[in-house]
Each structure stands twice: as structure tokens, then as C-alpha cells.
């Protein structure tokens, strides 16, 4: 696949949707409006934990301008004892997340919603809704939630035979860890904590929904999957999928946070009750209070190694916050943590812990950065103890083709070793640091990647161009990559290809934009469709020439006669064949739908240089490089973009991002002022070492790219701070007060 003759694959083309996005024309969900549209607003809980005794909406309904009020009673009921899974979600929890039912479970939990002639009237009406609560004690942190006398969020959750906030567990075992540790010369064990961090998409959740009197429903919303929106809306409102058309608006960032619904079913019910289209737009505070960050965590990891660097055993325990309803990404934490290494004895255990926080949502390799933070930090210390370069320690133990991973699979050809070799041989790693409180850290990471359902349609237009329709919202330039592949396969010019994201009524089922799956899966169905189109084109030429289709070859964007007919007819271009399409059998086009498999995991190794201002505790990143096996960089710029975005989010997670709660159980930093994501002046250029080990199970060699680059970040920064200060800080974020306190404590200790 590294065929240099590729004309479009690997080229930095201009994305098809680009001009719209640099001119303000691109329509995001909040940009939509409909005739007669009114506005919806949500009433949110003032308590972190309370029983809802009653809700009286009569005063709100009486307010002039109010057109509809909705509560949980207006939605399909999902009893807690019957699981209703949809992907990794469960409608029992989803229904209670969009509107509280028996209890409010976090401060900001939606209770009711109002649609009115203006946002102001809707907000005023929300304030008139009378809710009677029985306020309960609450638990925010993991330790509070698993304490003996903890307030129990859900009576129906049992652990070890008793009501508990531990909603689930996950265990991976390989070999015998006790036997493994017995062989070790060096054992390092540490405990870590990480804070919840938010995906931080700049576009808040928004939708416009129109339900006609016959229940025909149009949903215009920002999500990572219009089919997910349709499915969840059907589950929660009871309107059948055939009556719902979910249109994917342009999406202003998701990072996993838009893989579930918050507003769409609520707006649907409000629209149905009011008989009007309803628009709902969250403000930033609502996003921060009531949409899912990823889990906060506490974990303990123990690793044993021989003097020569051979890791003989690894053990990890990971507690992850689920938020108020079950479903934290323990699989990502416990499953990915040890995956980069060929370790014969592994025991990895995850706990899913509910507490009075907003329900977590996916965030870029969900759970994996938490696992990697612990394992990669411990490995750093193992390397120090046995006096080995930390990259060489990883190289010695690196998973490769044939390695059996604790979470199940035996790896096919993977590129982890190559990321380590590239890091070791890089200018970055070879350049010595010069400053006093400067340090360098390394870390690696793994993500599963995903395949799953995709559909595509490739149509030849009457004038001989190509329209490709797929079903995955384009968040980071995937249209450009699809266009590169299509142009390559058909042998035509990139500009001849248009790529559309279809709505749920116009393209076949396509799973989420998530799991680093979009290009992997959609390229597969596009490839199948293009192959079928080429067969049709060859058939049309054969018909025109009066020869057998097997005697036609498609080359360089043209049909050419071959074999005994070679040179007998002038070749025909796509345009010429399109012009004759009706005479030769009708429109030319093909679609393909598939449940794709073979995604295979992705690996990355990061190198991070920091400098610490030891008087103020400030950590600044000086230089940062990501080395990642990307399979095949179909569009290198957008591959780099994924790597750079992941690096930036990892740095943010490591240094300044955190959810801060006050004593009342409320988020104390629900905005971009105090939820401190990296700003432009915080970061250096973010360097990319792209390594291409083509995925043998994909026609273009594509491997998922988007999630791995977040995984090593927090550990790489933390290990760099250790290198700078000689202090191992095990609690994120490495914010100034934390770093300064650690430095001063260390200095005092040294002085004593």
C-alpha cells in the first residue's frame, strides 16, 4: 500500500467541505431554524441527590407564551430490572439521564423541559415549575462512594450481595501474576488518581426538531452519529425509526461526548406536544454541569521486572467514576493499560463506581489514558530502578505480531516496535536538555480501534463526476480522506469527487463517528462500492464496443479494450460513459453495506520535554513529539491533525484540566474560564512522527488514528516532571499548587 504511484492517497488535498467552513457558511446544529420554530429549555436539579416527590408544572403551563412542558412521564418507561442495550449504552440509564425519573442524581440533572415563544419565556417558565424533593446525602468522589456508610444512589445495584455504588467489574487475567512477581528482581507499586476531564468541544449541544401531526419527525442535530440519534429517539419517545429522519448537522467537535443524546428526544416530545418545531441549545454551563466528562479514577499498579528489563508480571486495579448511572470505561482502562507489552502474567481489574456526578460519556480512547497513566508511570520507575533507558525498557517488552494480550487478542502485524525505534532515533530524543529544571518523559499507549457497521453509495453523475454518500459525521476531515480514496480507486481527479454525509433516510445504517473507526470502516464500503461501479463502467464500455466485459480494463480513469481487442477502440472516459449511461442500461452507481471487521489496535509513543518554574509550580511543555503507527496516512494533514489534537488534550489533562466540586456537591468551574483547556500560547508546535505499518486487514491499510494520541500524554508529562524535579507526582493534574507543594515538601525533606 506504500505504493508511491498513488496519485491521491497520501496527498494533502483541500477538504470538500472546507470553503464552507472558512466562510461561515457551514451549518452547525445551532445555526438551523425552521418556520414557526419555538425554543426549549431544561429545568435542572438544584440538589446533587434527592428523591423527586412531586412535579407541578401548572404555573409554567399557564405562563403566556408557553407551548409545552415535558417531564419523564411523557417518555417511554424503562424499568430498572430489564436491560435495554444499544451499543455500549443502556436505555434504562439513558432515559433517566435525559430527564430524571425517581430521583435527581446530580446537581444540574434535567427534571423537566419547557417550549415557549422565546428562550427567555422558556427559562422563566422553568423557574415556575414546582418540584418537591426529599433531599438525600450525596457522594462525589470514589472514596466517598465506596465507603461503608456511603449514600447509595441506586437500591437495585448490588455488589457482593449488598446495595452498593459499585455497578460493575471487569477482569483480565493472563498467566499467574504471583508466580511472575516471584521471578522479579525489581517490583514497583504505586497508586494514582486522575480527575474527570471534559471533552471540551467548542460547540455546545444543540438541535432543532420538528414533529408533524402524523409523527413524521425531522431532527437536525449535532452528534457523532445520526443513526444513534434516531435509534435513541425512537427508544425514548416511541416514534418508530421509519418516521424519523435524523439529519447530521456539521459538528463542532465531539471527542466521544456526542455519542449519546441529551436534547433530541426532549425536543421531540416538546415538538409533538406543542405542534411546533422546537430548538434547544445548551449553554456552556449546562455542558459542563450536565454532559459527560470522562471518569475520574483511582488506581494501583504493580509491575515486576528482571534486572535485564524483562517484565515478568503486571497487576492493576482501576476504579473509574461512572457518574450517576452505570457505565464507566473500565474496559479501556483495564484492557488497554498493559496491551503494549508482551507480559506473560497479567491481572487487570476494573470497578465501575457510581456517584452524584453527571453521567460520564466517551472521551477519546475512553479509559485508556487512565490505565496508561498508571502503567506508564510505574514503568518509568522500573526503568530508573534497573538503570535502563525507558524507551529501551519498552522496546525490550514491546508487543508485536503474535503477542497474546491480556484482554484477549493475539496481535497481527502491528507497529508498536517501530514507534519506539523512531522515538529512540529521533532528533528530539537525541537532543540533550540544557536547563536546570527541565526534564524529558516518555510514555506509550494503545487503543483497540473499532470496525462495525458502515454504508456507502457511490454514484456517477450525468456529467461524469462522482458523488459519494457515507453515514458518518465528518468531524476532522474524513470527507477529504474518502475523496482521496475514491479518486484513487476510480483513477480520476480529486476535484471530480464530492463526498456527502447522508441523513438517516438517504444512506444505510452507519454506526457512530467514534472508536477511531470512520475511515477504516467507510473506506471499506466505499472500496466495495467503487469496485462495483468500475464493473458497471467496464460493462457499459463493453456494450458500446460490442465486446465481452472481461475484455475491458479500467485504467487511469478510462475504460480500455484489452487482450485481442487492445487498441481496436478508443478508450472511454468516465464523462463519455456517463453521457451514454441511459443508452447502455441506466444510471451508474453502487452501494455497499457491511459490518466491518479487522480494525486492529493502534500504538503510539510520546516524548515530552517540560520546564518547571519551581517558585510558582508551573509546568510548561517545551517540546512534544508523537510517534504513532497510523497504518496508512490517507490524508497526512488530517492524520497529523488527529495526533496534534490528541497531544494537546493529553497535555491539558496532565497539567490544568479538572472538574472541581464545592462542598455542596456542585461543579465549581463550569466554564472555559476555570476549566482550563490549553490555549494557543500554552503549547509549542506539536511534532508528529507518522509511522505507516499498513493494516493487513484493510484494502488501503488503514488503522484507526484518532484516539491513541491521547493515551500516552498524561504519563509522558508526568514522567517529564519527574525527570525535571526528581519527584514522582501521582495525582493529576500537575497544577501549580500541586507541583509547588510537592517541590517544597521535597526540598524540606532534603534539608532535614
Amino acid at each position, binding site marked *: 500500500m506504500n505504493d508511491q504511484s498513488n496519485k491521491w492517497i497520501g496527498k494533502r488535498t483541500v477538504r470538500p467541505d472546507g470553503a464552507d467552513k*472558512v466562510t461561515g457558511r457551514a451549518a452547525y446544529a445551532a445555526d438551523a431554524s425552521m418556520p414557526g420554530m419555538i425554543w426549549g429549555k431544561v429545568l435542572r436539579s438544584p440538589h446533587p441527590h434527592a428523591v423527586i416527590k412531586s412535579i407541578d408544572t401548572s404555573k409554567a403551563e399557564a405562563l403566556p407564551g408557553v407551548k409545552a412542558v415535558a417531564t419523564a412521564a411523557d417518555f417511554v418507561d424503562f424499568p430498572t430490572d430489564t436491560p435495554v442495550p444499544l451499543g455500549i449504552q443502556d436505555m434504562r440509564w439513558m432515559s433517566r439521564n435525559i430527564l430524571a425519573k425517581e430521583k435527581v442524581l446530580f446537581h444540574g440533572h434535567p427534571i423537566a423541559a419547557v417550549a415557549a415563544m422565546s428562550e427567555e419565556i422558556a427559562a422563566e417558565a422553568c423557574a415556575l415549575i414546582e418540584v418537591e424533593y426529599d433531599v438525600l446525602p450525596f457522594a462525589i468522589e470514589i472514596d466517598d462512594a465506596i465507603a461503608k456508610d456511603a449514600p447509595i444512589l441506586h437500591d437495585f445495584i448490588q455488589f457482593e450481595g449488598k446495595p452498593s455504588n459499585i455497578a460493575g467489574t471487569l477482569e483480565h487475567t493472563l498467566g499467574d501474576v504471583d508466580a511472575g512477581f516471584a521471578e522479579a528482581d525489581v517490583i514497583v507499586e504505586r497508586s494514582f488518581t486522575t480527575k474527570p476531564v471534559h471533552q471540551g468541544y*467548542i460547540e455546545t449541544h444543540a438541535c432543532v426538531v420538528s414533529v408533524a401531526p402524523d409523527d413524521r419527525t425531522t431532527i437536525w442535530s449535532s452528534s457523532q452519529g445520526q443513526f444513534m440519534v434516531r435509534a435513541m429517539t425512537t427508544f425514548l419517545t416511541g416514534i418508530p425509526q421509519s418516521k424519523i429522519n435524523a439529519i447530521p448537522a456539521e459538528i463542532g*467537535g465531539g471527542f466521544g461526548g456526542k455519542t449519546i443524546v441529551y436534547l433530541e428526544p426532549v425536543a421531540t416530545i416538546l415538538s409533538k406536544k406543542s405542534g411546533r418545531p422546537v430548538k434547544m441549545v445548551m449553554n456552556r454551563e449546562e455542558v459542563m454541569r450536565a454532559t459527560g466528562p470522562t471518569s475520574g479514577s483511582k488506581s494501583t499498579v504493580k509491575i515486576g521486572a528482571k534486572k535485564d528489563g524483562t517484565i515478568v508480571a503486571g497487576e492493576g486495579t482501576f476504579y473509574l467514576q461512572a457518574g450517576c448511572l452505570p457505565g464507566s470505561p473500565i474496559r479501556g482502562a483495564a484492557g488497554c493499560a498493559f496491551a503494549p507489552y508482551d507480559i506473560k502474567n497479567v491481572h487487570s481489574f476494573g470497578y465501575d463506581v457510581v456517584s452524584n456526578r453527571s453521567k460520564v460519556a466517551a472521551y477519546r480512547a475512553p479509559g485508556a489514558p487512565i490505565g496508561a497513566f498508571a502503567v506508564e508511570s510505574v514503568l518509568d520507575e522500573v526503568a530508573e530502578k534497573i538503570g535502563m533507558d525507558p524507551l529501551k525498557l519498552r522496546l525490550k517488552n514491546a508487543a508485536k505480531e503474535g503477542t497474546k494480550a491480556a484482554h484477549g487478542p493475539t496481535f497481527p502485524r502491528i507497529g508498536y516496535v517501530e514507534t519506539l525505534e523512531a522515538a529512540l532515533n529521533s532528533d528530539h530524543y537525541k537532543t540533550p536538555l540544557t536547563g536546570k529544571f527541565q526534564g524529558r518523559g516518555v510514555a506509550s499507549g494503545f487503543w483497540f480501534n473499532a470496525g462495525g457497521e458502515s454504508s456507502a453509495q457511490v454514484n456517477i453523475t450525468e456529467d461524469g463526476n462522482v458523488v459519494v454518500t457515507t453515514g458518518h459525521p465528518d468531524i476532522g476531515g474524513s470527507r477529504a480522506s474518502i475523496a482521496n480514496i475514491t479518486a484513487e480507486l476510480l483513477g480520476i481527479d480529486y476535484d471530480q469527487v464530492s463526498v456527502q454525509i447522508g441523513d438517516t433516510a438517504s444512506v444505510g445504517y452507519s454506526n457512530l463517528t467514534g472508536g477511531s473507526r470512520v475511515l477504516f470502516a467507510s473506506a471499506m464500503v466505499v472500496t466495495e462500492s467503487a469496485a462495483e461501479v468500475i464493473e458497471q463502467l467496464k460493462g457499459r464500455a463493453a456494450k458500446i464496443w460490442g465486446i465481452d466485459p472481461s475484455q475491458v480494463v479500467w485504467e487511469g480513469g478510462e475504460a480500455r479494450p484489452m487482450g485481442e481487442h487492445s487498441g481496436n477502440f478508443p478508450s472511454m472516459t468516465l464523462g463519455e460513459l456517463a453521457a451514454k449511461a441511459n443508452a447502455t442500461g441506466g444510471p451508474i452507481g453502487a452501494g455497499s453495506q457491511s459490518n466491518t471487521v479487522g480494525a486492529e489496535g493502534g500504538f503510539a509513543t510520546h516524548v515530552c520535554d517540560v520546564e518547571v518554574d519551581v517558585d510558582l509550580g508551573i509546568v510548561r511543555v517545551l517540546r512534544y513529539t508523537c510517534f504513532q503507527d497510523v497504518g496508512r496516512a490517507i490524508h497526512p494533514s488530517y492524520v497529523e491533525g488527529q495526533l*496534534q489534537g490528541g497531544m494537546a488534550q493529553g497535555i491539558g489533562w496532565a497539567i490544568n484540566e479538572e472538574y472541581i466540586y464545592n462542598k455542596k456537591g456542585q461543579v465549581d468551574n463550569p466554564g472555559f474560564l476555570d476549566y482550563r483547556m490549553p490555549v494557543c500560547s500554552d503549547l509549542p508546535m506539536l511534532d508528529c512522527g507518522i509511522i505507516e505499518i499498513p493494516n493487513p486487514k484493510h484494502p488501503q491499510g488503514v488503522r484507526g488514528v484518532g484516539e491513541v494520541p491521547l493515551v500516552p500524554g498524561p504519563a509522558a508529562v508526568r514522567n517529564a516532571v519527574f525527570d525535571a524535579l526528581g519527584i514522582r507526582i501521582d495525582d493529576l493534574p500537575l497544577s501549580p499548587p500541586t507541583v509547588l507543594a510537592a517541590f517544597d515538601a521535597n526540598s524540606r525533606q532534603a534539608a532535614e
Partner: protein
Amino acid sequence: MAKIHVSTTINGEPTEFLCDAGDSMLDALRDTLGLTGSKEGCGTGDCGACSVTLDGRLVCSCLMLAAEADGHKVETIEGMASDHLHPLQQKFLESAALQCGICTPGMLIAAKSLLERNPDPTETEVRFWLAGNLCRCTGYDKIVRAVMETAADMREAAR
């Protein structure tokens, strides 16, 4: 309370609209005038997605009352391109300096404002000027490069 009548100039066009006293300029642009290119990411001046210029000065339209536009000139992303793209817009496209694109209008308005004042900014100057424009997708790398390369191109073209 009666609506306020505002006479202003938006992207060079004399424009009149009605607003409430509490409406922000961003509300007026998006909801009244249909200029939805300016985005609301926070409503508190922390993300810059609503950036416009007011009499040539870069501001957050979410932190400005619509009524304040009376008698002044406002420029938004919709006015940045003519029949061809502004060099910054073209460079952002060519260098993939956008992913989801939600921050892009504000980023472009801010970058244009920088280059009008400082045609030869250092990387540090670019980074600090754009510190009020949050981007969660790109890590800023390609944005900063695009702004600096555009500045170089524009200097070259002006010679």
C-alpha cells in the same frame, strides 16, 4: 419595553435592526440578521468563537450589546471573502488548519486583525494574540503555521 432601533454597518452594508436592550451583538447577528457564521461557544468571552471587529477592533460579539452597534461598523466572517477567499482562508484550507471548523470563523477574524496590525508577527506574538480563541481539535499547530505563512505570503505580495 419597546425594541431599540439600531442603524449600523455590517460587512460594509448599511443595516438596520431591532433588538432588546439585553440582547448581545451575537444574538442580533445570529438570530435577527441570519449571520450564523459567528458561533457561541461560551457566551462569556472565554472562547473567541464569536469574534468580530467593531470599528476595526477585535471584540467578542457575545460581550457586546447589540444596541452598542448603533453608528458603528461591524465586520464578521461573512464579510471576509469577496469573490475569492482571503489569503488566510485559503491558507487555512491548504494547510488543514481546521478540523471540526467551529472555532474557524473566530480564529480567522482574530488572525486577520493581527495581520492588519502586525504584518510580521513572531510565533509567540501569534500565539498570544490568538490565546482567546479556543480550539480543541488541532492543538493550534497548523493554525499558528497557517497564520505565519499567510503573513509571509502577504508581505511578499505587498513588495
